[in-house]
């Protein structure tokens, strides 16, 4: 067996395990927190809540207008100068969450606004409070609209977490760099880590189609349900 192939095989599991232990959890936590933040920011901006709405606008403006890596450096290397010391992983979580929150807030906002007026009015006419209407009527429909673009940011996020390597988070990319420094096989190892990112993203793409299927309430969902109960009866 060639040396390259052996290094490839030997490093596959260490890199993959780092991915499963750091990259994936980091991505999931950030995606969940970021999406929650996005929903809150979107609703604040739709309702034009005083002050909060201005703050939200400012926040989205700053985050979208500056490079993610600069934000990471400010939080991890800059804030300690102000006496605020945040360890690498929390710093990465905070920065990525703010980033996802800002970008996704625009996705969520447009998805909410894309729910037809008639739906808002029907819910309002039935006496739903704003929160009840959001949770029971608007957000479920907005989710369906937002899933494809949200998965887009989800998939970007998997890859963007590699930037956390610059603030000493040992995620998949930094783990690969370390093996490279030891073995001097950059070509084979960076291809390898690229492949593992590709696998992760492919799983997400598959997941997206599953989620879209599940949400497609106007494409014969009840027909499927009926078929199932038919099978169960027999």
């Amino acid at each position, binding site marked *: 067996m060639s040396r390259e192939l052996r290094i490839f095989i030997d490093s596959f599991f260490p890199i993959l395990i780092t991915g499963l232990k750091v990259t994936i959890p980091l991505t999931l936590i950030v995606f969940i927190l970021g999406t929650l933040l996005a929903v809150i920011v979107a609703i604040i901006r739709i309702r034009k809540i005083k002050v909060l709405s201005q703050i939200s606008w400012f926040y989205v403006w700053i985050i979208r207008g500056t490079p993610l890596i600069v934000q990471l450096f400010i939080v991890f290397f800059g804030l300690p100068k102000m006496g605020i010391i945040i360890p690498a992983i929390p710093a990465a979580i905070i920065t990525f969450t703010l980033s996802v929150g800002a970008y996704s807030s625009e996705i969520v906002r447009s998805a909410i606004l894309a729910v037809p007026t*008639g739906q808002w009015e029907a819910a309002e006419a039935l006496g739903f409070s704003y929160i009840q209407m959001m949770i029971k009527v608007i957000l479920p429909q907005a989710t369906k609209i937002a899933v494809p673009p949200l998965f887009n940011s989800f998939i970007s996020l998997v890859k963007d977490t590699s930037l956390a390597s610059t603030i000493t988070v040992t995620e998949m990319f930094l783990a690969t760099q370390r093996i490279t420094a030891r073995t001097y096989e950059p070509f084979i190892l960076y291809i390898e880590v690229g492949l593992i990112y590709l696998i992760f993203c492919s799983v997400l793409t598959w997941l997206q189609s599953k989620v879209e299927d599940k949400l497609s*309430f106007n494409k014969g969902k009840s027909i499927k349900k009926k078929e199932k109960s038919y099978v169960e009866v027999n």
Partner: protein
Amino acid sequence: MLKLINITKSFGDNIVLKDLSLEIESDKTTVIIGSSGSGKSTLLRCINMLSEPDAGIFSYKDMTLNFSDKLDRRLEYKFKKLTGMVFQGFNLFPHKTVIENIVLAPITVNSIDKKIAYEEAEILLKQVGLFEKKDQYPHELSGGQQQRIAIARALAMKPDIMLFDEPTSALDPEIELEILKLISKVTKGNFTNIIVTHNMNFAKEISDKVIFLEKGQVLAEGTYEQLNTSDNVRIKQFLNTIG
């Protein structure tokens, strides 16, 4: 009796309801007619609190809402809940099955016990003749069927006043009659109906009283026969144009 007194509503410079006063008798069916843009939908939306009048008074039973004063939100909400609305475009919730559409508001808004809400919904579904569709989704139903469900959904909240804004305008003429009969069947005598329609047959069949709205004001009111035989030029003209 629902009394609307000197109701005014404008959108910017456009005064849509002008000092409009009306009396709607309880447990009767009032049909509102009038040309496009005369303010019919706006009037219903005000009664349902989807829009708030700029000025005027609603009085119903022991409740008085004065829109010229600062409104008591709780009283406003209490009044709103006495009304149910059926829209021209049905507006069923597409992500919910037929029966879920009906139970959603009773469970969420009125905190009715789930089991009871479902039982009541099944009774309503039988009344509107669509019990066998209870687990289907709205898009699997025809327009007429969707409107039946929308009627059941509004009735499930047990309102006093049912508001219908052109409930059959999006439907085929033959289905119009069907919906009309259904409305009579499920509401007659037990609900105060206010129905906006362009269909004069509708008014003839179902109304106890007809109100003719013109430029945000009541131009005439009376029974269908009274309006139909009126000498008023404007009313004659209107009735001729809509046939």
